[in-house]
C-alpha cells in the first residue's frame, strides 16, 4: 500500500530512496553458492548414511559375534557336562571292578 508523502521533502526522500539495481553478478554468485552448498549437504548426508550403515554393520557383527560366542559357550558347557558324567561313569566302572576284585580275593573259596 503506497502512502502519499505529506510534503516535497518526503517526496524527494522517496525518490532518493528508490531501489538500486543489484550488482550484475549477484544472482550468479547466489546460484553458484547455492549449488555448492547443496552438494556439500548431499555429501554430508551421504557420509552420515555411510557411517550409519557402518554402525549397523558393526552392531550386526558384534551381535552376531556375541550370539556365536553364546552358542560356543553353550556347546562348551554341554561338552564339559558330558565329560563330567563320563568321568563319573568311568569312576563307577572302576569301583565296580574294584569291588569285584575285592570280593574275589576275599571269597571263602580262596581261603
Amino acid at each position, binding site marked *: 500500500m503506497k502512502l502519499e508523502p505529506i510534503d516535497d521533502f518526503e517526496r524527494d526522500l522517496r525518490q532518493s530512496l528508490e531501489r538500486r539495481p543489484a550488482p550484475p553478478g549477484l544472482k550468479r554468485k547466489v546460484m553458484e553458492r547455492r549449488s555448492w552448498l547443496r552438494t556439500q549437504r548431499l555429501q554430508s548426508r551421504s557420509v552420515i548414511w555411510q557411517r550409519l550403515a557402518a554402525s549397523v554393520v558393526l552392531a550386526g557383527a558384534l551381535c552376531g559375534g556375541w550370539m556365536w560366542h553364546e552358542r560356543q559357550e*553353550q556347546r*562348551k*558347557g*554341554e561338552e*564339559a*557336562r558330558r*565329560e*563330567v*558324567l*563320563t*568321568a*563319573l*561313569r*568311568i*569312576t*563307577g*566302572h*572302576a*569301583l*565296580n*571292578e*574294584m*569291588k569285584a*576284585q*575285592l570280593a*574275589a*580275593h576275599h571269597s571263602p573259596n580262596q581261603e
Partner: protein
Amino acid sequence: MNNRIIAFVLGVVGLSATVLAQTSPLPLPPPVEKELAARASNVTEVTLGKNMLAFASKFMNGKDEDEAATRKLIDGLDGIYVRDYEFDKEGQFSMDEIEQLRKYFETSEWTSIVHERERKSGETTDVMVKLVNGESHGMFVLTVEPKELTIVLILGPIKMEDLGKLHNIGGLSALNEVAKMPGVKDKEKTKDKTKVKTGDNE
C-alpha cells in the same frame, strides 16, 4: 646385563609355573600314559580343573535328581582326572608300567587303603585317599584288567557318601563300601576330632 635378563626371565617362568601349579592342582600326565594310549584301541581321557568343573556345573539339569546331586558333588572339587584305556588283546602293558603309574600319583599326602594284586589274571586294584588335616581331599583309584586300565583321580573335599548317592551312575555306590574300609574309617574318626578343634575349613 645379559645375565640379569636371563635371571629375570627364569624368575618369571618359575613364578608362572608356581602360579600355574597353585591354580591347577591336577598333575601333568605321566610320560607312560602316552605310551599306553598309543597302544590302546579305545582311549578316554578326561581332565577337568576347578574352573571347568564350575562351568560344567552351570549346565547340569537341576531338576534331574542325579545331575543335581552331581552338581552338588563337583561344586567344591579342585579337579577330576580320569583315564580309561581298552586294549584289543592281553599283554599290551607290563606290571612295571602299572607300577610307574601308581608311584607317579602316590605322593606323601596319599594314603593307600586298597592294594590288591592278582598275579594269575594280572588284575590289580589300588585305592588311595588324600588326607589334609584329617579331612579327605582326594581319591585315587587304579584298576587294571587284562585288557583295560582305568585311572581315576578326584581332588578336592570329597564325601564318599555324596558320590554314592549318584544312583544312576553304576558302581559309585561301591564308594560307600570304600568309606567303610578300615583305613578310611579310622582316618575319618580322626578327622571328626580334628574338625572340632580346627573348625570348618570348607
